[in-house]
């Protein structure tokens, strides 16, 4: 093609380049906008799914709480919640001892430790040492403790040791000593979890 031919192509070439540029701009600009809106929509869809899931979860939570509310209130009444009440435990063992007409007791409370089955629960070991007249006194003591319905506990171990001789004595003197370990359970305080 000669120079003149090329020169006559200039307007068409200019149009072509301008049209191509304009087309590219329209393509990219509207494409970007569409992509941006699509991303916003995708994000909203995720939010929508999350909101729906949250609502469904809240309904499930409500049902779950309602199902266990009675048990929780019972535990509240027994002072198992909010870190438990050590004083109540001590009073319970002392009163059980008195109710069994025993001779008093010595106690030790260890610091609370975690319960592997639930991170919201903790347990406290209480060691109780008390003199007994007969073996059956221990049962009477444990029955009296259970009857108080204080806290949540279970006996872990009990050791009966003979401290006196077997000869009959004119006055009833305790010849046995019991040492029991009781585990007291409580729900941690709200801020301690």
């Amino acid at each position: 093609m000669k120079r003149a031919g090329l020169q006559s192509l200039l307007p068409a070439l200019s149009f072509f380049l301008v049209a191509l540029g304009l087309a590219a701009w329209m393509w990219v600009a509207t494409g970007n906008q569409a992509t941006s809106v699509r991303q916003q929509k995708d994000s909203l869809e995720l939010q929508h799914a999350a909101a729906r899931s949250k609502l469904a979860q809240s309904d499930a939570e409500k049902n779950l709480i309602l199902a266990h509310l009675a048990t929780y209130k019972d535990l509240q009444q027994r002072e198992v919640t909010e870190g438990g009440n050590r004083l109540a435990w001590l009073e319970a063992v002392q009163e059980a001892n008195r109710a069994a007409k025993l001779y008093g007791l010595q106690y030790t409370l260890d610091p609370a430790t975690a319960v592997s089955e639930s991170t919201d629960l903790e347990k406290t070991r209480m060691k109780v040492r008390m003199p007994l007249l007969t073996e059956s006194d221990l049962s009477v003591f444990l029955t009296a403790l259970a009857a108080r319905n204080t806290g949540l506990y279970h006996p872990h171990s009990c050791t009966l040791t003979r401290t006196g001789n077997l000869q009959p004595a004119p006055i009833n003197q305790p010849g046995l000593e019991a040492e029991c370990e009781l585990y007291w359970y409580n729900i941690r305080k709200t801020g301690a979890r």
Partner: protein
Amino acid sequence: MNLERRLLLYISPRGGLAMLSSWRSLSWLAEFSATEEGMQQFKDLLLKYRRTPVTLVVDSTDEDYRLEALPHVQGRARQELLSRKLKQIFRNAAFSTAILQGRNPDGRRDDRYLMVSLSDSDWLQPWVNAIHGCGIPFAGMSLMSIAAENLLARLKIRDPHALLVSRQSAGLRLTYFQHGKLRFSRLIRGNVQNNADLDVAEEVSKTQLYLTSQRLFPREGRLAVCLLDLSATLAPAQASLNADPQFEARLLKPDDISDRLGIPADLITNSPEALYLASLKPHFPNLAPRAFSSGYQVHRWRWGLLATGAAALVGSTAMAGWNWLQIRLDEAEMEQLQASIRQYEARYQDTLRHLPQVPLPADSLSRVVGTVAQIEKSKRTPEEAYERLSAVLAHYPAIVLDKLSWQAASGMQNLQAGSERLELTAGIMPFDGNYRAAMEQIKRFMGELQASPGVTEIELTAEPVNTSSSAVLSGTTLDSGEITEARFSLRLKLHGKAS
């Protein structure tokens, strides 16, 4: 039919005519005589359509056809080979071309070419100069015979040997085709107006003799003669030809042709050349040198650029429209989603407001309640174990307990399984120093314990006397000696019931 608007010019030594071809239509423009006045009219027309590409179809008696077999080459080598061959055959012919017609079935499988030229183009030069002079895009030059090949195909004439005969302003055109491929063509000029003096049947016979002599047509062959009877003058020729068994002549009436080609019947009746012009393919063998078509190349580039630019604009506008539509749809959907989210949030807040006040999350509460239930269920006291032991001890008054330890299993799972452990330290009183008897009694005691319900395992952890060969053993059997105790320890594993 070509999408591009194109000026079709038919030129013969007697003059010419112009037609305008555009999308699915062909229209008659003008007719020119081979005079000064006709030339001026021709130039005026060219100036009027100076931006429209022009295609020239020449109808001349001075056409030359040669069949050649050339080695099969491609690209630039083919161009050079054909250029050399054309010069060799037609010497200094200004307008010539080679039409590829397939390959030989055997041997080297050479390419078969039909070499075509306009041997005398002096009469044509003023017309070509006029086209060149006005700068109109010149698409190329073709011959009536080349256009006839496509006309034959469009008329669906499939005879192995066909002769297409038509009468137009320049004379009588006879074109021979072998299996639809152009082999030879000739124009015979008459001496009177409309060439009415020409004996068509005689000219067909002469042509057949020539073709036979040139071995283009087999001696025993039967020639299908297609008479394009546009002026309703060829019926006698058909009758005459059909009298000869070597011919099979058939008349093609303007209406038939018009139906088959989609061209108005009156157009082809008034201008028989229109048939050929309409049949010319957009890409045809061009007899004009490449230099003649440089303007057309620029024209094609220009339109290519304009069309591509416009297509890009249209395409991107469509795409932008589509994107805009998608944006609007997405935005509408987003509004619905936002409303729905607000609704869910309101319902969630409402649920929260009516949720019972518990300091634990629901799942923690569930876990805690579950664990508490397990603790309550697995709670044990030593009473049951003591009762079992007492029941057996009652049969052994000589066994006196010193220490009794009860232990529930540690761990929630073991607790639930209900396993307990009992350890006792006792002595046999009174003891007369007979360890054998004491051991017998202890064994009986252990046996009875083992048999009692709930005892799963029993072990003697300390014997009254250590009879091991590795231990020191001392004592006395003197009458005055102290009576020692027969102390022993047992360990039991029990499976109790939860309280």
